[in-house]
């Protein structure tokens, strides 16, 4: 074990993180009891838009839910097999297959134990998948719209609306491209009014857009603090933190958490020199979703004093970034700080769409080079010794172009290790093989245990 050099401390906000996540699934589950609404859609989705239907409207986002299942190995295996039995190919998106399996079997990954809501694997009384009232999806990869097309079929016709955001990279954004997305959102609002029989409140939309911008900017600010040596956060913890953004980034609670609880605590850790990994002597980053059932591989690296400081995935799926005056990467300035006031639906949607299309973990859909440039920037600014790329068989969208990223990183002078796996299908992960690779990679970097 490499020598301890820094103090470490558990995050104080840990309980709040757990509470937010559990309350999120609980609120979704119990929405109907209080006359509220439930909707389901992707984590990428423009979730500020359904917020205009009222304050008692609760989402369940599909990818984090699929990951929750993946984390529950027993349930995941049942779900994957159920999806396969229903005829779906094994190489399709693993979150999607977990999610479909959960519907086909009508088994929810959460339940009550002695009246308390929590994950199913701790026991208790099983409950079925609480049906959403409508589906609000975005189409980012080949599977996204089709995911819910099939959910709608499995659930016998739950109404679905899906927004196509495929308008090219942000570097080539035009008014025509923004307008296409905005126009679909407008159609979507009218559609939601029809299927929910509720009036839409633009004030709530505007509030949610502000929250969305705040949550994503503040998360980026948290990630930027990891430029410090020692890193105050390691990627394994970041997964538990960033996930809140994938659940409900347009909500007041998540935005408040990032701004008022997490950010001050991480700043304080930096000030006091608190490390995530006390024996930090080597810094790497990863890429794409991790194999959720095997997060222990990150612990394995810690024996080498190796800390994964994050990834473009954790930084850039939830965080929004911009180049600062000194040329470094930092949090994108929020509309509230730019003196921009959103006063009506049109303005709110236009601003919102431009904000979202600028998402870092989106640009690679158009060119691996755009992603490589951001990764090289992280490697330099976050002072990395190497990069581990997870060739993720579970996600066609985020593994897109990953081989080209590898070549570009090598060319820029950074050592790269690749390992194959699957974020949501543990049958495709070779743990022993992966730790062997990690050993060899550490040897290459000259890092000793």
């Amino acid at each position, binding site marked *: 074990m490499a020598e301890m050099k820094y103090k470490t401390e558990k995050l104080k906000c840990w309980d709040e993180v757990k509470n937010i996540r559990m309350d999120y699934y609980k609120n979704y589950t119990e929405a109907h009891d209080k006359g509220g609404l439930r909707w389901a859609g992707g984590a990428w989705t423009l979730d500020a838009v359904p917020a205009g239907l009222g304050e008692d409207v609760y989402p369940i986002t599909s990818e984090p839910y699929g990951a929750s299942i993946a984390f529950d190995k027993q349930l995941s295996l049942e779900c994957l097999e159920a999806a396969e039995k229903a005829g779906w190919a094994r190489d399709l998106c693993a979150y999607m297959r977990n999610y479909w399996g959960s519907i086909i079997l009508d088994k929810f990954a959460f339940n009550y134990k002695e009246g308390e809501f929590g994950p199913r694997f701790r026991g208790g009384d099983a409950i079925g998948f609480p049906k959403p009232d409508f589906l609000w999806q975005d189409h980012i990869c080949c599977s996204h719209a089709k995911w819910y097309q099939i959910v709608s079929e499995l659930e016998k016709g739950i109404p679905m609306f899906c927004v196509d955001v495929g308008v090219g990279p942000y570097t080539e954004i035009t008014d025509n491209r923004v307008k296409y997305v905005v126009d679909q959102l407008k159609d979507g609002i009218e559609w939601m009014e029809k299927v929910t029989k509720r009036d839409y409140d633009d004030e709530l939309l505007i509030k949610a857009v502000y929250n969305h911008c705040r949550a994503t900017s503040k998360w980026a600010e948290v990630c930027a603090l990891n430029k410090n040596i020692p890193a105050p956060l390691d990627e394994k913890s970041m997964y538990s933190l960033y996930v809140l953004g994938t659940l409900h980034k347009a909500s007041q609670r998540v935005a408040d958490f990032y701004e008022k609880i997490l950010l001050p605590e991480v700043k304080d850790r930096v000030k006091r020199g608190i490390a995530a990994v006390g024996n930090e002597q080597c810094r790497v980053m990863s890429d794409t979703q991790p194999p959720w059932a095997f997060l222990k591989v990150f612990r394995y690296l810690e024996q080498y004093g190796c800390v994964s400081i994050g990834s473009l995935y954790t930084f850039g799926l939830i965080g929004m970034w911009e180049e600062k005056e000194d040329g470094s990467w930092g949090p994108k300035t929020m509309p509230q700080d730019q003196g921009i006031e959103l006063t009506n639906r049109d303005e709110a949607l236009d601003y919102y769409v431009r904000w979202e299309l600028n998402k870092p973990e989106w640009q690679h859909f158009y060119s691996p080079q755009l992603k490589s440039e951001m990764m090289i920037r992280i490697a330099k600014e976050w002072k990395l010794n190497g990069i581990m790329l997870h060739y993720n068989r579970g996600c066609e969208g985020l593994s897109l172009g990953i081989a080209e990223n590898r070549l570009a990183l*090598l060319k820029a002078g950074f050592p790269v290790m690749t390992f*194959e796996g699957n974020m949501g299908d543990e049958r*495709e992960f070779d743990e*022993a093989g992966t730790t*062997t*690779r990690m050993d*060899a990679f550490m*040897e290459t970097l000259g890092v000793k245990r």
Partner: protein
Amino acid sequence: MITAGVDCGAKNTKVVILKDGNIVSKSTVLSGFDQKSAAQEAFSEALSQANLGKEDVVHITATGAGKKEVDFANNTVTEVGADAKGTNKLFPSVRTIIDVGAEEGRAIKSDGSGKVIDFAINEKCAAGAGSFTESMARALEVKVEDLGDLSLKSTKEIQMNAQCAVFAESEVVTLVHAKTPKEDMAKAVHDAIASRITSMVRKIGVENDVALIGGVAKNKGFVKSLKDDLGVELKMPEDPEYVTALGAAIVASERAGGA
């Protein structure tokens, strides 16, 4: 100074004993289910060949898939690191190392000192070049050691898609039904494996000189297919299956302070 390297592989366990940098003995034992005793047995055999006792060996380094089973070793090194060290000793000019074993294929880029710069290990679908040739030999009803010579007789190009071993096996069955001569099928099998290995090597880039090590390097048919595919000359040690163990033994002397 006397050191030993133990390479506990998926199929065989190999031991090399070094005395002041020279190989004094080597041995091989089937790994089987009990890797621990296989390693012990191979080590004892190597010792007795060299007329040495356990106490004469100052440092033992284990490597290979079962390296953690070698409980008498002082420490371990990864197969990638051992390959680079071993090859560097035999061929200092080599920059690209290809190791094809029973269950795993590796490509390693190394500098002039035996340090690893980049490496690639075959992914699941392309696993088991060694075992694959064995099962193909069975399907063709020839001895695995005859497969190489057999395929050298063929001049025909039959394209086979060996991305997946199961798929490839069914392709062989098709060829059998089509009454394809055995030598052509043997060549098709070697071409297919060589193509997968080449793919992997291209990932790290081919820089001269290139060495081929690992048990499958003894198969002449495969070597020819790989040469043709890569379009480069291959440096081949006399005992390709011992290079990894040799590397481990070198690491052992370095760690014992006698490098």
